[in-house]
């Protein structure tokens, strides 16, 4: 056990903290609205210029070659500073790990620098009207166009977060019309301005235009839009879902900072009854537990052991902790809780947690079957 950071890591932390304190913008509009998205984009560009956008990436792509520990430190400092949510997250945290693992050097060179610079903005095309938790029910298809050297996409994706503001989408398409379930799928990158692609944004529960549905009708993409082998899309996609559920999408820094703000809200609050103080303490302890769990998990990752199905434990824990934490805040606000503000918005945002990235029912099945070895049928 060594729970201290090295001098170099502490220096990295100090540099990040200093820069964030001097540069973090406050009071941006929601990143899930057109106006707010533009403001968040400005922030992403500043992060990129100062080389803080993608710290763990190679320097050639705009990163700092930071270790996974340094990445954790950066995340902690990022949320400690109250910095804005990352509108680039679906690209940098979900697509990028897939490209690093399965992409060709040419794909990496083409896609990653523009993603880091927030020049291309990526959304995720997983869900379809008939394929939610059951992702293998994907129906959107890709038909071979030999003459043009590529594929023609037809189908519909939905619940696409920030799809209306993004320039590109990655997603799964059925390349083998005879195939069923998880066989015969291919992982493609699709420019949303391609002919035959229509994007319609719509409001989420919180009133922001954060969702979109993407209609594809014979939209052409070239061969090099496929990541990994044709027909191997399921395997490639599973690498991304691990990132989505696990620590890359929700680092402990988020919850430590939220728990700290909750404690602040409860301090000297006339509504802080003993029962509510107990709930504040519980949320605070759970955020701390998530931090310790993560340190253990990152130790494993640094030693070359992939977290695998463990990422489902992360997802269950952070998503349900988040809701309990936000509900406690609303109770401390009493009748004021209904006012539009940071706590009510965070509450509405948290409600989506047990649904996206694989519902928590699916996560519990994964935990039971893959960590406890219980029979599928």
């Amino acid at each position, binding site marked *: 056990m060594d729970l201290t950071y090295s001098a170099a890591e502490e220096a990295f932390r100090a540099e990040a903290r200093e820069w964030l304190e001097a540069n973090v913008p406050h009071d941006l509009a929601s990143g899930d609205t057109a106006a707010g998205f533009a403001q968040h984009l400005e922030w992403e560009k500043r992060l990129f210029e100062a080389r803080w956008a993608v710290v763990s990436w190679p320097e050639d792509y705009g990163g700092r070659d930071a270790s996974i520990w340094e990445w954790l430190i950066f995340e902690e400092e990022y949320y400690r500073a109250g910095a804005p949510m990352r509108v680039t997250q679906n690209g940098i945290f979900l697509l990028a790990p897939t490209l690093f693992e399965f992409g060709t050097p040419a794909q990496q060179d083409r896609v990653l620098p523009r993603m880091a610079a927030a020049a291309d903005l990526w959304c995720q095309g997983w869900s379809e009207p008939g394929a939610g938790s059951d992702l293998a029910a994907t129906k959107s298809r890709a038909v071979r166009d030999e003459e043009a050297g590529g594929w023609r996409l037809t189908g519909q994706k939905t619940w696409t977060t920030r799809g209306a503001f993004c320039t590109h989408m990655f997603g799964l398409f059925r390349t083998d019309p005879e195939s069923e379930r998880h066989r015969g799928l291919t992982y493609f990158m699709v420019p949303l301005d391609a002919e035959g692609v229509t994007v319609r944004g719509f409001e989420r529960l919180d009133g922001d235009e954060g969702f979109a549905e993407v209609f594809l009708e014979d939209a052409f993409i070239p061969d090099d839009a496929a990541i990994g082998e044709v027909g191997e899309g399921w395997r490639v996609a599973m690498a991304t879902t691990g990132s989505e559920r696990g620590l890359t999408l929700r680092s402990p820094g988020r919850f430590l900072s939220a728990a700290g703000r909750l404690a602040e809200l409860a301090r000297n609050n006339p509504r*802080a009854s003993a029962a509510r*103080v107990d709930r504040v303490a519980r949320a605070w*302890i759970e955020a701390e*537990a998530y931090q310790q769990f993560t340190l*253990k998990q990152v130790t494993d990752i640094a030693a070359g052991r992939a977290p695998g199905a463990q990422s489902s*434990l992360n997802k269950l824990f952070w998503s349900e902790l988040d809701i309990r934490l936000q509900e406690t805040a609303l109770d401390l606000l009493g009748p004021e809780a209904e006012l539009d503000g940071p706590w009510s918005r965070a509450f509405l945002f948290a409600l989506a947690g047990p649904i996206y990235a694989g519902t928590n029912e699916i996560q519990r099945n994964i935990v039971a079957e893959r960590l406890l070895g219980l029979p599928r049928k």
Partner: protein
Amino acid sequence: MRFALTDDQAALRDAVRELLTRECPPDAVRAAWPGPGTDPDRVAAIWAKLAEMGVLGAAVPEADGGLGLGACDLVPLLEEAGRVALPLPLVETAFVAAPLLAATGAQDELLGRLVAGEAIVAVSLDGSGLVPFAGVAEVLLLGAGPGAAIGLSPAAAAEPVDSIDGARGLGRADAEAPATPLDLDPRERDGAWDRGVLGAAAQLVGLSRTLLALSDEYVKERRQFGVPIGSFQAVKHQLADALLALEFAAPMVLRAAWSLDHGEPTASRNVAAAKALASDAAEQVAATALQVHGAIAYTTEYDLHLFAKRVWASARAWGDAEWQRARVAAALDLNPASAVPLP
């Protein structure tokens, strides 16, 4: 940064696991219960083996005849004690009393016999006066609550009382007036409390691992409606939740151990957080284990009750989850409002 046991720590844990798996199967736990099957010699033999391995003096400085190990070394061993529902006060004697007696510098004779396995020290510092394992102890270490003075009494000062967990050898003593007060500085006194709380948390983690493993095996074997009951989502999800609670409690226990070893200012708060998580997790795992086993769990013939009853006793010993959360809240400067507020 490395959140993992060292090779030495893991090797010591493995050795203790092997010893306890061999010497303390469920029928050895039953041997500690009163009644026709009682076998104090069998239980005493486990203690002798632990002494032989040096475990009883593990937390005693080398100068005093111990191994000079810290909380990070001991916590994995105490988890192992929990895993087998060890019917002996390993936490109390080896982790709470031994380093404390060493710190007084005035109890060398008792300490020497403790390390050799000749004297068992039972401990009650929570103010209840209830002393687990008083029945097998020679000496009692008593305190009237966290922060209160601590002293020693002979084991005869405790009256036997019946516990739901017959293996606990529970007694009741007067915690206000121990026969021999110990001269301790507050840091030593509070350290003993923190070690007791942390040791209880570690044991709860170990107990939970066994209860979960028993349940996991059982639901794969037990068939109803023509299929293993572990294939039903209603069963899967309960077990997934039990694992979730356990997997997020265990690292906090190790974190708190590290905090104690390194004198972090947040050590007592981390210990309280660890016990809060471990108590809640263990109670959840025990309830789930009972439910997924069905009627077989509601017997004393099946082994599950040996572990579940230890959970129900230990989850509340050394402060239950809510009490520990109140400690954390106080450390965070959160005080409940005194007046009834507006709605």
